């Protein structure tokens, strides 16, 4: 029997209201926290080893302990931008259980000594933002927020800040700029937000799901929490499964659950008669993995997915079945990053654009297999050369598609050339004679 922290009662009627939340013990952990030393709360977070649920998987306790102590203005920001394609967990969590987020944020704010906290929610989530606004008003009315929280000496203002549609604002420093009323361009790091963030004050930024774990960690105790999941990936994870499966949706599992159980067991696997061609384990920014048994047997946790050559990211599994051409998947992915690039760094701005152009050339039958090498080299030039990782987030999945499905790309190139009457890029007679290093031959063929 696997532990559920969020989904055991998620559909309980009225859970979004303060009275129901209070009835099931809500805000008792805030009470407990206010009687603790802030440092003792951070110790519990460290003991729990809970890792960030927003993408990078950085240990929350460590990040919180980086904030300087002292009396300066500090801030807590909840990242509810959730724009990573395939991700939709924060939406359901916030809409159905907003008070758990508010309680988690109040505890975290107290632990780091912040007197102002903001929830940066993507502008498209209008209903969820309304739900949060209402919940915050209720909590403030009942004394869980505002001046002298629950009769203590601690005061906290919490507001919802609505974004206006830009994926890049999920990147923590771009989010801070958007919150400051600017264009959402990422900042140079360091200084990291923990030292110099919102309004240049020390700022802790965490994902919705990360912050929602905080009351559970206090309730169970950090060490007990760390027993859930695996030693390196503690706790549960809400996994968003979408694409070519029979029952897309959010499923909460313990980290380390076999991937097969999630994709086939909970989400029902691909429709009758279809096989999984590839899957993104952590949103469209994660390198794809093939749908073979070897990968289906992977435990779904941070380390195992990283070892397999991808990343857990936001734990958004997107399934692509064998009826979908890989070139189409690549083009769809690349176009998204081209549109969302903020344009600040050349490798990302130009690299995403040229990758789209080259993929379109494949579609239009104007490419030769040499273009695959050029595309891979463009991706290489992006990796590690940009201010934020949006560029990498396109380069990684595209490179992985070329790596795992090179044959299909080549066939697609030939097929499209033939369809457009442009003739074969590689003479048929040579096809079987190619050695392992193919690039020299491609350049000899020319185009």
């Amino acid at each position, binding site marked *: 029997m696997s532990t559920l922290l969020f989904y055991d009662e998620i*559909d309980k009627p009225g859970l979004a209201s303060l009275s129901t939340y209070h009835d099931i013990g809500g805000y008792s952990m805030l009470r407990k926290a206010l009687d603790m030393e802030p440092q003792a709360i951070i110790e519990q977070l460290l003991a729990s080893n809970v890792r960030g649920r927003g993408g990078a998987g950085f240990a929350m306790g460590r990040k919180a302990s980086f904030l300087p102590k002292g009396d300066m203005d500090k801030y807590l920001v909840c990242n509810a931008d959730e724009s990573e394609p395939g991700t939709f967990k924060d939406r359901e969590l916030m809409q159905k259980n907003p008070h758990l987020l508010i309680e988690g944020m109040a505890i975290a704010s107290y632990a780091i000594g912040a007197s102002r906290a903001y929830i940066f929610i993507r502008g498209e*989530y209008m*209903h969820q933002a309304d739900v949060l606004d209402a919940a915050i008003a209720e909590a403030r009315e009942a004394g869980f927020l505002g001046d002298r929280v629950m009769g203590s000496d601690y005061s906290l203002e919490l507001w919802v800040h609505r*974004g206006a*549609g830009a994926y890049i604002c999920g990147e923590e420093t771009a989010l801070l700029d958007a919150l400051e009323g600017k264009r959402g361009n990422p900042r140079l790091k360091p200084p990291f937000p923990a030292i110099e963030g919102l309004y240049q004050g020390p700022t802790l930024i965490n994902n919705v799901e990360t912050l929602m774990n905080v009351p559970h960690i206090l309730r169970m105790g950090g060490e007990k929490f760390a027993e859930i999941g695996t030693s390196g990936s503690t706790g549960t994870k809400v996994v968003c499964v979408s694409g070519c499966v029979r029952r897309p949706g959010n499923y909460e599992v313990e980290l380390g659950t076999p991937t097969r159980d999630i994709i086939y067991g909970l989400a029902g696997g691909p429709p009758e008669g279809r096989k999984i061609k590839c899957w993104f384990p952590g949103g469209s920014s994660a390198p794809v993995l093939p749908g073979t048994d070897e990968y289906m047997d992977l435990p779904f946790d941070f380390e195992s997915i990283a070892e397999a050559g991808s990343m857990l990211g936001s734990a958004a599994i997107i399934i692509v079945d064998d009826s979908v051409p890989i070139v189409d998947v690549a083009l769809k992915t690349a176009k*998204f990053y081209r*549109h*969302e*690039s903020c344009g600040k760094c050349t490798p990302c701005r130009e690299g995403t654009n040229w990758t789209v152009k080259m993929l379109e050339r494949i579609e239009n039958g104007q490419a030769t297999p040499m273009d695959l090498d050029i595309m891979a080299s463009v991706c290489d030039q992006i990796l590690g050369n940009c201010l934020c990782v949006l560029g990498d987030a396109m380069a990684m999945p595209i490179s992985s598609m070329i790596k795992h499905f090179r044959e299909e790309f080549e066939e697609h190139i030939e097929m499209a050339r033939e369809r457009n009457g442009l003739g074969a890029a590689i003479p048929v007679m040579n096809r079987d004679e190619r050695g392992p290093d193919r690039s020299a031959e491609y350049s000899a063929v020319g185009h």
Partner: protein
Amino acid sequence: MTPSPSDPSRRLAGQVRRYSHGSRVPDWDRAADLQKAPAVIPDLATTRVSDELREAIEQYMSRYPDRRSAALPALMLAQKVHGWCSPLAIEQVAAVMRLTPGYLSSVATFYDMFETEPKGEHTVYVCTNISCALRGGDAIYEAMVEAAGDDPRMNVRTFECLGACDIAPMASVNGEYVGPLDEADCRQIVDELTSGRPVLEHKRLRDRPSAIDLPMGDGLPTAGRDISNRITASGNDVAGPKDM
């Protein structure tokens, strides 16, 4: 002459929307008017702003240590009043927030939800990102465009992942998430919008239970799963407002 969508020259042009002079940048070929003084912060005393809008913006400004933080919510409020981020809307926000119109325009052009041209009052964002596309999102967009026809009240556009891939293919209709959609729903959405009725009540995301309580579906739509990015004319497929 505008090439038709099937015209190969249009596909070769990278499917990027261009102005008649061939550039993606408006008026690139016109020199800046150096005689013209840059727009300064408009005076609130001489700018007509309704009390309602001013108070709402001021209310937002009070939430932050730095008033400039209210730029996004303030522009959103003004857009609601004016239908789009018109020069007048920007001027009003600038007057209340004591910022230059130029600053606010630079912000408004960055974000996808700000309309920088006049648009129909009913906004339909059809998600055509990967998870929706895998379930027919591109076909839904086309059906929606067809259903909207040339009704000037409709503003139908493609959108990147809206964070609701569990109800793919989906759309956000004036902010209300609905799905999974089929092509017949598109007609119904347009009818309900134009007659002022609530939209697709049985498919609203807000009423949906979590997935584990739903029956296993049996598959995917058979038609319209071609995700080869045939969509050309949509606002979102431009290299991006963030580039400018």
